[in-house]
């Protein structure tokens, strides 16, 4: 979809005609189309108004950039899948390219893995004694240049970090999409990159939950044991705390995942307490709320109208401050067991930016096999996906120039 802003050498008057759609034989360079006034055969008007220059920017030069900070691998995370699903279509690796590419492409979105900006490959990092979490292992200059280029509608040749071999492979071409998501450890670390982001999210997994998840992830592997899993987390913690965690304060939305408070001494990490921390005053982003915006609410939906099984569901909503920023926090502790619980909860949330009643539930059901589909992680990831869609639509509609009216000479 092309959006055209008209810049005229002189004021746009009735002698300048614009034909729609912008199909012309006169393209001087990619983005500019020059229309000349057709000479009027029925007697000219007084002054010649000269050419009207109309600059058309193709839809992709309005690329909206989203940053997602997560320590769970790249582009393959559940969050990304839910996000791309909200926009429709499944995200796939680029066809015909390097099968070890980390990039995912769908109709509307392209997801780039920030590991591709490693300046040191696995061997290099070993030599220098530097983990992947360390900024010294990453080329922020290149990250900034390329994200900036894509945002302004220019395709780039982006390196590929091959996770299997640990080497940097030859680059792949990334064409500007409507929505670019940069996912990885450092989307908000560099100030210049941060300024390019239209919206940013930080996935904050608490230590206990991280440990429980990694046990689930790794225990089946022959090489692993409780000790090795624990040792790996502990060894990475100093770098994580120094370089990754501080990005939280810049995020527009933080999804914090904690152990449940509903079951005393639970350490299985199966029932979760999830907090959606939303910054106030972010352009194009209106925080989700429960019942009464700005007030403090505690809500247990289970009761007469809704029966839930143990341990139930508990919600909390209220204003707060987070690293000096005004925020609103929506919190869910517990699990959904049935469809009607999910619909019931959805019907009581406000500002969720759905296009129809039940959209959140529908999205959750679509991916019922994804981790987190029965708790706050899935719920809030889905809601954030809808908020991003809303943000995208607001941004693109505000950039559309006022419709030009073709006037007859």
């Amino acid at each position, binding site marked *: 979809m092309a959006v055209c802003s008209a810049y005229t050498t002189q004021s746009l008057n009735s002698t300048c005609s614009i034909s729609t759609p912008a199909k012309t034989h006169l393209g001087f360079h990619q983005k500019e189309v020059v229309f000349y006034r057709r000479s009027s055969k029925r007697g000219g008007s007084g002054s010649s108004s000269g050419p009207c220059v109309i600059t058309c920017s193709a839809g992709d030069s309005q690329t909206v950039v989203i940053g997602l900070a997560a320590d*769970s691998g790249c582009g393959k995370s559940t969050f990304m899948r839910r996000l791309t699903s909200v926009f429709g279509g499944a995200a796939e690796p680029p066809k015909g390219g390097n099968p070890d590419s980390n990039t995912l492409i769908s109709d509307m979105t392209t997801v780039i893995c920030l590991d591709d900006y490693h300046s040191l490959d696995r061997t290099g990092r070993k030599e220098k004694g530097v983990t992947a979490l360390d900024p010294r292992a990453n080329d922020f200059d290149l990250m900034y240049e390329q994200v900036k280029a894509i945002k302004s509608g220019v395709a780039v040749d982006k390196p590929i970090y091959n996770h*299997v071999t640990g080497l940097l492979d030859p680059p792949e071409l990334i064409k500007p999409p409507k929505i670019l998501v940069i996912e990885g450890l450092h989307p908000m670390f560099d100030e210049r990159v941060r300024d390019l982001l239209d919206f940013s999210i930080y996935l904050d997994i608490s230590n206990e939950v991280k440990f429980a998840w990694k046990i689930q992830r790794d225990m089946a*592997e022959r*090489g*692993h044991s409780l000790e090795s899993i624990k*040792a790996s987390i*502990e*060894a990475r913690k100093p770098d994580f705390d120094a370089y990754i965690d501080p990005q939280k304060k810049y995020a527009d939305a933080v999804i914090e995942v904690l152990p449940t408070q509903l079951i005393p001494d639970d350490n299985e990490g199966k029932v979760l307490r999830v907090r959606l921390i939303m910054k106030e005053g972010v352009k194009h982003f209106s925080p989700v709320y429960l019942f009464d915006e700005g007030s403090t609410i505690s809500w247990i939906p289970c009761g007469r109208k809704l029966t839930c099984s143990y341990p139930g569901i508990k919600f909390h909503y209220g204003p707060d401050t987070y690293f000096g920023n005004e925020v609103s926090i929506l919190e869910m502790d517990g699990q959904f067991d049935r469809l009607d619980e999910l619909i019931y909860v959805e019907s009581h949330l406000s500002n969720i930016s759905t296009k129809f009643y039940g959209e959140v539930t529908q999205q959750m059901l679509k991916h019922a*096999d994804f981790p987190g589909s029965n708790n706050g992680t899935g719920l809030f990831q889905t809601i954030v996906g809808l908020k991003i869609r809303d943000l995208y639509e607001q941004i693109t509609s505000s950039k559309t120039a006022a419709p030009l009216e073709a006037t007859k000479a």
Partner: protein
Amino acid sequence: MTINAMGEGAKYKGTQMTEKQLSEMIEKKVTEAKQVCEGDETSDECKVAWDEVEEVSQDKADLRLRLEVEKKDPLESFCLENPETEECRVYDD
């Protein structure tokens, strides 16, 4: 009932090989990390060794997720174009 712990879900030989390779790497790197850290747990070498373990563990998990949940072999589109290559041989279960 035999459970094929490796290659479960992988369609192409190349992916089966990758899975096996990643599993072996995990084992190897855990052993390495334990050795390196014996001297000094706070050393850079120790940190890097466990970071490598994490990287490879995550890769294995990502591959497994893709195969089991999404039921898509990463070599799918490559093998459509190059069905004759060694890595695109299809495994019988």
